[in-house]
């Protein structure tokens, strides 16, 4: 146990070194979210009437932030599956290192990447008119929420990577999960336009809670929220926290155990 943190950090450093050795990785993992910001802002921004001072981009940015951290789940899973395929995980498992260090280290690495990506996106958003109005403290809290949500989700990625083991399959599974998860929510359009049954799904979707929470923290009314009058849509901050805790309580022990027994 005493080496858990230091072992994990060695693994994290490995990921940082990977980014330094292949800068293209870093470039492409930031280009995609920036592209989404620009596309949604200029393709839909003009035709979605929000009644929001500052326009659609104020509602859009929290949605894209959440979508982006959710998408990194697939990258986490694919990275781990690739290490399994190449035999690197076998080597790590034959070393006298703390159980859990390899997977914990990877979640740290992905968290660092998320910080960077969020910073780049915030800058891109600012450039196209995003102006959060809630003051430095609440804005920082909003980013802390996004960061924590990304971290909680990365544990799903870890588990999927360990179970699926094939990097290409993982990529596809990742998109199959994250696309509906992010679009079946209030991230890009109000849930009021959806069929009644889907509205309930959308409002209980952790992504919706997160988006609503971020909108509140960035100083907006929760416009796309409470149509189905569900508890999550009325308490987005609390719900988001609960979801994050729940995800980690389930997936951290599950992943660590899966890692330890992965060969059997």
């Amino acid at each position, binding site marked *: 146990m005493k080496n858990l943190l230091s072992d994990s950090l060695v693994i994290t450093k490995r990921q940082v070194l990977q980014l330094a050795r292949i800068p293209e990785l870093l470039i492409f993992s930031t280009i995609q979210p920036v592209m989404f910001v620009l596309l949604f802002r200029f393709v839909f921004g003009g035709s979605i009437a929000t009644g929001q001072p500052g326009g659609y981009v104020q509602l859009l940015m929290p949605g894209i932030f959440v979508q982006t951290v959710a998408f990194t789940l697939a990258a986490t899973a694919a990275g781990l599956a690739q290490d399994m395929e190449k035999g690197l995980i076998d080597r790590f498992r034959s*070393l006298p290192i703390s159980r859990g260090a390899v997977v914990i280290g990877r979640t740290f690495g992905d968290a660092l990447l998320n910080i960077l990506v969020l910073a780049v996106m915030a800058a891109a958003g600012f450039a196209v008119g995003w102006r959060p109005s809630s003051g430095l403290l609440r804005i920082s809290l909003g980013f802390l929420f996004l960061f924590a949500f990304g971290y909680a989700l990365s544990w799903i990625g870890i588990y999927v990577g360990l179970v699926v*083991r094939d990097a290409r399959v993982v990529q596809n599974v990742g998109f199959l999960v994250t696309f509906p998860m992010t679009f079946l929510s209030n991230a890009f359009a109000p849930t009021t336009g959806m069929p009644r049954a889907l509205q309930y799904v959308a409002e209980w979707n952790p992504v919706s809670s997160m988006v609503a929470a971020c909108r509140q923290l960035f100083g907006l009314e929760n416009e796309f929220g409470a149509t189905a009058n569900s508890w999550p849509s009325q308490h987005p901050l609390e719900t988001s926290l609960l979801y994050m805790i729940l995800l980690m309580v389930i997936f951290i022990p599950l992943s660590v155990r899966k890692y330890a027994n992965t060969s*059997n």
Partner: protein
Amino acid sequence: MKTVSAEQLIKTYDKGAVRALDGLSLDVTEGTVLSVLGPNGAGKTTTVRILATLLKPDSGNAHVAGIDVIKHPDKVREIIGLSGQYAAVDETLTGWDNLVMFGRLYHLGKQPSIDRANELLERFSLTESARRPIKTYSGGMRRRLDLAASLIVQPKVLFLDEPTTGLDPRGRMEMWGVIEELVTGGVTVLLTTQYLEEADQLADEIAVIDHGTVIARGTSDALKSQVGGERLEITTEIQDLVKVQEIIAHVSGSATHLDGRTVSAPVTSGSSALIQALRALDEASIHPLDIALKRPSLDDVFLSLTGHVAEETVVEPVQKKRGERK
């Protein structure tokens, strides 16, 4: 003193449908090299994975340096090195990055990790490529780096799982040289291979396995004599064939075998039979194209033990579940 021992290991996959190990037992004496020789699917990799704590057997015992592999895997991990087809390094990082990382994971301090990395790179002739990503390395260089990574902390026992599979002859020779050097340093080695000449070259003892169990073991010489003794073999011009057959029959005292222009027969008296045959040839003024005292090769050993040749690629049922083994 047995540094590695495995008793009655059984490992099945797919709920018992595939028996990868079927009561396999083996041991390795301290400071020696045991080569586990067998075709694909014989259970070589499964054996190594159990001994290296990566896999738990369904039943059976295994000890490394007296430590129970199943009960105390953490203690075993401190004294073993693992290298080969299924243990790898990070290909996007440089050789130096990798070795320093593994040093840190062995809990060497920062500077000792760096020193050790430099030392190993030097020793395996990789200093020039130290700052290049592994993916630019040749197959042989990659294997050498992989081996170096398993030697960060001088291991008591080294497991080498098919260390030269997929290498070209030059890479293989280089790897053999490196392994031989290690063995001189006193480390106990368990090496799996499907190459008979590799086992012959590197091992003190050979365990031949097939279908998850050891079917023969002993030194290379012992295994060869188990198959049969030496044969006297003479290749000659067509016009001398009859005379040569007579000479060999006389020297050997048993029936001769003719294959093209090569006549052969089993002999028991070794080199004196060879001398006797040479004298007779000289008296008859026959100049043979080739004359040799042939000992059975490990190929012959394998064939006579298993009924099939070693290089034959047996489709391994377990490989369909490749992921399961990783």
